[in-house]
């Protein structure tokens, strides 16, 4: 008979027993844990299941739900036709404008090469003109086709958007309203991009370009049709600065008289000369 000299530790015994009995279970558990912890292994196991489910949905969804979905979409579209159009319209307009701008650029490039390659009397004349005027030749060709025309010019109070003076070639639109809308668009864009020190300088609408020159308490907006080359826009900017230096610095308070004065000066500087051409 053997004698156990140490009293049996229940706890130890239990653990040993567990080790023996549950060894297999534990191994499986470890494996499972490994799979769960390793994303690669996990997805290997789970993906087929998901795929199967997706497959099922793909096959059955159109069958079961297409009619209902179609009906809902159709109803919505019908009910919101105007709204949809309203959303689409600017996007389409933008695409068309982009396309036209692009075509214009292509045309400009083509003209550039023509200018370079031809040597005619016309070209010689252009060359002379460009030497005298300091405009590059392709700009000159462009301006013969489609020179920039100042349609409208506004001096607008910066914050309120109220008109401080304006002149226009055709006098067809309500200039107060345009000045307000321009200011709204300007503050919207400047707000949206959170650029306090940067101002909106150019808006393009169809074949119209709105050139904006900013000053401290007002800004000048020039609405132009035709294309405007970089040189021409520089020249315009200089003309605007000349104008403000000469005509706008001494105006201190804005009353009707001041507005009238600014308007007639705008006309004299920017609009009238075009009529004489």
């Amino acid at each position, binding site marked *: 008979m053997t004698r156990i000299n140490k009293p049996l530790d229940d706890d130890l015994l239990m653990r040993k027993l567990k080790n023996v009995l549950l060894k297999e279970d534990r191994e499986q558990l470890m494996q499972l844990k490994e799979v769960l912890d390793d994303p690669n292994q996990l997805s290997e196991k789970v993906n087929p299941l998901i795929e199967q489910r997706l497959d099922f949905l793909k096959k059955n969804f159109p069958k079961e739900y297409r009619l209902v979905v179609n009906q809902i979409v159709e109803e919505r579209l019908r009910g919101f036709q*105007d*709204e949809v159009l*309203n959303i689409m319209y600017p996007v389409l307009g933008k695409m068309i404008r982009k396309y036209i701008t692009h075509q214009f650029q292509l045309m400009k490039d083509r003209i550039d090469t023509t200018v370079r390659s031809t040597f005619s009397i016309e070209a010689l004349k252009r060359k002379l003109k460009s030497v005298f005027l300091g405009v590059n030749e392709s700009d000159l060709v462009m301006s013969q086709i489609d020179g920039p025309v100042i349609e409208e010019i506004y001096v607008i*109070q*910066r*914050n*309120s*958007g*109220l*008109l401080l003076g304006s002149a226009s070639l055709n006098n067809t639109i*309500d200039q*107060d*309203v345009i000045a*307000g*809308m321009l200011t*709204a*668009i300007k*503050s*919207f864009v*400047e*707000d949206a991009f959170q650029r306090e020190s940067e101002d909106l300088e150019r808006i393009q609408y169809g074949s119209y370009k709105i050139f904006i020159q900013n000053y401290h308490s007002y800004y000048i907006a020039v609405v132009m049709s035709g294309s405007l080359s970089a040189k021409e826009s520089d020249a315009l900017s200089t003309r605007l600065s000349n104008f403000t230096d000469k005509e706008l610095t001494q105006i201190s308070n804005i009353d*009707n008289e001041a507005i009238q004065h600014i308007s007639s000066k705008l006309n004299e500087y920017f609009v009238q000369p075009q009529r004489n051409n």
Partner: protein
Amino acid sequence: MTSKKVILTGSFGVGKTSLFNQFIYARFSDRYLTTIGVKVNKKVVKVGDREISLLLWDIAGEVTQDKVPTSYFLGASGIVYVFDLTRPLTYKNIETDINYLKDLLPGGIIKIVGNKKDLVSEEQIEAVKNSLSVPVNITTSAKTGENVSDLFQELGTDLIG
């Protein structure tokens, strides 16, 4: 002629655009076309023997005024704050909104307008007015045109005065 900038603001769908369409073109539509961004319109108002040109900025409705870009309010002389008499949600924040606008435009004229009065009874209007902590200046209907020109006429008078 003097020009004044006036902001039309308030929650969406309260009838800002309708009010000014009624005022400017004397027309009303039941269809709701929400305003995107801002629409500026002009109307000349006669006050006595003087004329004043109102440049009305109709801005897209926001649930609370602090959501409206503050730059829209710059240089404004007056604000027309519109709420919908039939929708409590549109006057729930009225006190906070008005205080906010007063801070934004110190000394500016603010008109508080309850619109769509054609849809509610006189008693209901009184109940709404009594429940508010700010005074309602005028109640209007952009649909029938009731009080619409009065609203802008009063505004013109205040702006000249």
